[in-house]
């Protein structure tokens, strides 16, 4: 089986992925898989999805040559895939449109979602409003505090936001709670999972919906530069923006795929969210992948300046791409991400999301080591307006 044909029929990417959930959810996942496989190749469904992406999201998103920043770094040329220009300000909407359309075809009137930074929650609340569905968003109580503007945004869009007080009160706990809701309301409810993780078929269908990023880039880069980039770079939390860019590039063997995890206060400090860089395989949230866990298999608390990367697992396809060596995974620290955040503001007039700033930070490290004719394509997965409070606070400024 070719790498880009994965997962197999039971949702495995090599030893990763699969369906590790309580019996109560098995039928719902099966129903979802059947519905998706039927619609996936249905031209009418694909046309509907494409229409929404064009007219509602504003796709295709442009690719922009960050020329001043590249000059300053003094090496490879950095190009940005502008997912930050999408409606709602991040790549998350690509997936929520796809899943909302699926929900509609399946006759589900209520949607639920988990969210970390709030981007996926906003994107879910948005599509729920767009298609006239009830929406409930679970968000760790810690993240509710960190991301107040997004909480209000979701409420404006008509969503009920439920702060989750259990565990570490972050994204993983929001996911647990969303799963609990789904188990309880499985017949009426569609769970819009926000990243390319969770039980099969989620890693597959989220990837498929996000592949619009890489599919566009594959056409845009030759138009703009006459060729494909030398490397594509994306931040990896759960890994949906990265897989959406990487997957279409799997066939170009000369293109390096580089995923950037959240190194937090440094891998050595233990306070990070980099399971591919420093974790071990295990089972969490319905799938097998690399996890941040202790020797006894308990999930450990993660740290990142960016709420959207603050997750102890990672999508199973990334785990497989790591093991096979097709993709490289690195980590950058909070400080490095913040420096890249400020650089992009000052040199390009673009305020990037703190998540995306991790990918930018690695590009800033890599570019100076490469010749000026080399090309790096960075996925600017979201805009940073939501992060200005966090950044101000770190600088000791209260807004």
């Amino acid at each position, binding site marked *: 089986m070719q790498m880009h044909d994965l997962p197999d029929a039971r949702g495995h990417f090599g030893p990763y992925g699969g369906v590790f959930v*309580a019996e*109560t959810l098995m039928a719902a996942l099966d129903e979802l898989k059947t519905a998706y496989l039927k619609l996936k190749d249905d031209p009418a469904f694909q046309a509907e999805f494409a229409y929404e992406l064009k007219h509602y999201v504003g796709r295709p998103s442009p690719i922009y040559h960050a020329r001043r920043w590249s000059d300053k770094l003094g090496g490879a040329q950095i190009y940005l895939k502008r997912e930050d220009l999408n409606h709602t300000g991040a790549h998350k909407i690509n997936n929520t449109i796809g899943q909302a359309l699926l929900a509609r075809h399946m006759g589900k009137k209520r949607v639920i979602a988990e969210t970390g930074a709030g981007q996926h929650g906003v994107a879910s609340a948005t599509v729920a409003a767009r298609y006239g569905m009830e929406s409930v968003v679970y968000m760790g109580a810690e993240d509710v505090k960190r991301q107040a503007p997004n909480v209000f945004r979701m409420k404006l869009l008509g969503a009920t936001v439920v702060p989750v007080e259990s565990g570490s009160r972050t994204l993983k706990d929001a996911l647990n709670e969303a799963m609990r809701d789904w188990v309880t309301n*499985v017949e009426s409810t569609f769970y819009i999972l926000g990243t390319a993780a969770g039980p099969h078929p989620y890693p597959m269908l989220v990837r498929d919906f996000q592949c619009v990023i890489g599919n566009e880039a594959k056409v845009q880069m030759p138009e703009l530069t006459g060729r494909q980039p030398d490397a594509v770079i994306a931040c990896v939390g759960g890994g949906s923006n990265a897989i959406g860019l990487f997957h279409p590039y799997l066939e170009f063997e000369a293109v390096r795929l580089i995923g950037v995890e959240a190194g937090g206060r440094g891998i050595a400090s233990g306070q990070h969210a980099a399971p591919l860089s420093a974790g071990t395989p295990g089972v969490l949230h*319905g799938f097998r992948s690399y996890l941040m866990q202790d020797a006894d298999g308990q999930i450990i608390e993660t740290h990142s300046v960016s709420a959207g990367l603050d997750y102890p697992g990672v999508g199973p396809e990334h785990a497989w791409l790591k093991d096979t060596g097709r993709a490289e995974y690195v980590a950058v620290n909070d400080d490095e991400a913040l420096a890249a955040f400020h650089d992009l503001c000052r040199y390009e007039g673009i305020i990037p999301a703190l998540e995306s700033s991790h990918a930018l930070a690695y590009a800033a490290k890599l570019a100076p080591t490469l010749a000026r004719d080399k090309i790096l394509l960075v996925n600017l997965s979201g805009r940073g307006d939501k992060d200005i409070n966090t950044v101000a606070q770190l600088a000791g400024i209260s807004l």
Partner: protein
Amino acid sequence: MSRIAQKFAELKAQGRKALIPFITAGDPEPGLTVPLMHALVEGGADIIELGVPFSDPMADGPTIQRSSERALAHKVRLRDVIAMVARFRQTNAGTPVVLMGYANPIEAMGYELFCREARAAGVDGVLTVDYPPEEADAFTARLAEHELDPIFLFSPTTPESRLDAIARQARGFVYYVSLKGVTGAGHLDLAEVAAKLPRIRAHCNLPVGVGFGIRDAETAARVAELADAVVIGSRIVQEIEQSPRERVSDNVKQFVASVRAALDKRQAEVPS
């Protein structure tokens, strides 16, 4: 014959139904778990379900989540839970013990080491909430080599087409989750249970336990009219949570005894 099979055979001969209480190992503190297990038996438990604490108990409601957090605050590991069973076995050779928990602590320990140590300690069955049969082949094969019973769940949403696949891997008994939702939620629908159990029995000749949503002796007794075993979890964990430390064992024993009495009274009235 496994200790679980033997227990069900004995109960059947006596015309009684099994009472299976659940507690989380290490809750409220590690030193109380073995005394609590003995208290459960004294109260009338036939089989003990011992929860292995996990940081992300996705299928559990708030009560059992909190019990897991209390146990983890004491750093209770899977190995410690197995050691607790070994201590319980020093003075109880007859009551089957089923470990109930999530896949990851077992994955971290490794199948072989887990099975060997669990068996040596006197564990009888293992229920892993997030190992559906589709992902459990390798694990259940290893359990079987070590004569440990893999316990599987059926739920109200389990389609007819999956019943055989589950029944093929299950040993000891099967567990029917009597409501859609997490542990401790809502109230169970007796009519639904009554409708589903014959379907399960048509595909699976193991004893059927029913759990999730059983909160009092009366409901337990009514479920026992339909099932071979009654599983009570959150209600007992709540008793543990609300009792002063020195009263925990006595209060739990009293509650279990009240359920036992209701089951036996009902069985006496309605011979099966």
